[in-house]
């Protein structure tokens, strides 16, 4: 049986799949059987209706404000550019440069951006334990603050190793904007007279 040529998925979709597939395999017997067959080389015909594109998380749009306000995001980007040349760095093609050159630029970016970030945000670890420490997760733990990976079986309390302590924003104080300010200009062009 010929297998119809399968179109390669985009990176975002693949990332989504990679993140969600383990869970879906655990809880979806039919899907697990199909994957099993795929790995055995006896691929069954793909279901007529392929899995939908990874769902883009779209919260129900609030009725009053159809357009999300992007000002704060642009403002943060402008601060990172002004203090640490963040946009310059990301917009440049790094492939032709030596690690030393990239390292020198990275110092500019790191020093400036961390200064800029500290001005507007206070960032702290979600968990205070050291990475590598054993962590216990009691029943009803906040799944938004702590995510379980690996051998997730059984019932809470869970015990595991802290792989990443996480980050959270404790304070955000973006500068106020004067009326008429266009936040989409991340950095004005400069002309030296």
């Amino acid at each position: 049986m010929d297998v119809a040529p399968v179109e390669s998925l985009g990176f975002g979709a693949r990332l989504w799949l990679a993140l969600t597939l383990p869970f879906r395999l655990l809880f979806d017997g039919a899907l697990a059987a199909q994957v099993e067959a795929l790995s055995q080389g006896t691929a069954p015909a793909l279901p007529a209706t392929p899995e939908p594109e990874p769902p883009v998380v779209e919260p129900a749009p609030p009725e009053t404000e159809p357009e999300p306000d992007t000002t704060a995001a642009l403002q943060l980007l402008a601060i990172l550019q002004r203090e640490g040349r963040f946009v310059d760095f990301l917009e440049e093609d790094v492939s032709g440069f030596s690690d030393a050159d990239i390292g020198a630029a990275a110092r500019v970016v790191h020093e400036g951006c961390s200064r800029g970030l500290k001005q507007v945000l206070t960032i702290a670890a979600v968990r205070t334990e050291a990475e590598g420490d054993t962590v216990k997760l009691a029943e009803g733990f906040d799944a938004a603050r702590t995510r379980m990976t690996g051998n997730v079986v059984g019932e809470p309390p869970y015990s595991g190793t802290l792989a990443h302590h996480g980050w959270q924003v404790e304070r955000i104080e973006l500068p106020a904007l004067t009326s008429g300010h266009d936040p989409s200009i991340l950095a004005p062009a400069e002309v030296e007279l």
Partner: protein
Amino acid sequence: MSDEHPTHAVGIDLGTTHCTLSATASADTPPAPLPLPQILSPGEIGERTLLPSFLFFPADGQFPAGSLALAWYPAARDVVGTFARDQGATTPLRLVSSAKSWLSHAGVDRRGEILPWDAPEGVPRVSPVQAAARYLGHLRAAWDDAHPESPLAEQDVVLTVPASFDAVARELTLEAAELAGFDEPPRLLEEPQAALYDWVAQRGAAWRDDVAVGDVILVVDIGGGTTDFSLIAVRDEDGTLQLERVAVGDHILLGGDNMDLALAYTVRAQLEQQGTVLDDWQMRAVTHGCRAAKETLLGEDPPTAVPLTIPSRGSRLIGKTLRTELRREQLDAVLLEGFFPAVDADARPQTPRRAGLTTLGLPYPADAAITRHLAAFLSRAGEDGAFVRPTALLFNGGVTRSPMVRERIAEILGGWLAATGAPAPTVLPGTDAELAVSRGAAYYARARRDGGVRIRGGTAQAYYVGIERAELAVPGIPPRVDAVCVAPLGMEEGTQTQLPQAFGLVLGEEVSFRFFGSPTVRHDEVGATRPPETLTELAPIETSLEGEEGQIVQVRLHAHVTEVGTLELWAVEDAEPQRRFKLSFDVRGQA
């Protein structure tokens, strides 16, 4: 002022490089700094504890309309604070900086619109007094915005000045406050005293255990642009400890900014040896980088070298970024040896003969060695020129945040003292180098109202007027002038003196006296005379005597140290109706 009782005690540090404002509402809460809204970038307003003391005049249309507007300044034509400093670095000819140093510079017309210095035609200009008023006005507006129910002009406000400010500069500071809308003049306080008040406030009652009668506290204040020394003695008065400021140093235009620049020149020379020539923009980036590197290398556990990167000007960052480093030994050679050399107690600042023509710019010292200035200060501060041996040391100002700088100064001072058999000074634990002055000033404002520790001291200088000798006239030779002491050093607030000599003055004419000061002559009584060459000439004092023209009246000079800390001079008629004519400082500059 309204009849409302002031609700807050407020301290304002009007600094050479930045301003802060601290306030407290009650005796139980320590003074806290007011967050100061300011333009960070066109269109962006943020709050910072420090307001950089810079004023920038944008060209018409240089920034989008309204992008420099503040709540209290909607039609902004100029900008102060962070953005003024940052933008001004790229356009210095539109930037007013160090206005405070100009305020104390007798060589220029301080009420004249002379800043930005050397600005070309078409750039707006302000006087040093107006620039200071602009910063004070910003602080006042920020306060009133945050406390609409208790406006700043109705609070107990203390404004700090360098201890080395003479009577003229103090007067001009209050003039700036008046321009800024302070209907009642704020009380003036010397910055090193404010730093000591902050220390007392932080220590609480325990400060009396840290010092003893006979102690002499040396306050070393090294800020961004100026260095100031004061000596404060601990005395016994009816069984309790009292503090008295006994000597102040000269106004030295040396500070952290000089150090950053010295390091930047070192780095530039290092890059030039490698064949890289820096443009102005890159040089500023180097200076900026050196400031950060200096703080790391002078901080706790310094590394042996700090990498310095100089970003490219254009959008291409990678490959165009220059890289070098600043090493510990360079910092030691440039900063510690250059600004804090280990000199002997008899060292004096080197003053090379000036060339015949000098520019009128700020009178920067020829010698950058702060330790030599300190040795000179201690050597002339004692009774009859004896070397003063401080027993305690309090640091203030951004540069002294560095433990290495503090240790260095303490070590050199300790060496001088050891040579005379005296013990090393105790270093009093400093507080917050950036906020100590405004917090201490707020503490003082409250202590004046509610009672608390007070530092006495009176005037920091002795003041003299020049009086021509009554001698036979000799053609071509001006009559000789005697300097007559009108206010002795240490004259207390709220007191008056009267010169014994009487003068005949002609009504309807301008009268002008030469005016002198000295921070070192300590035993002259009112009326004592000395040759003016031993003193520093300040701005002349003048008055116009209104009255029946041509009439001659006999007057005597009175000096009055006001409650707020300024010196007023009056000519008072001997006979009835004892008319009083106020003399004012002529600050048009004599240089």
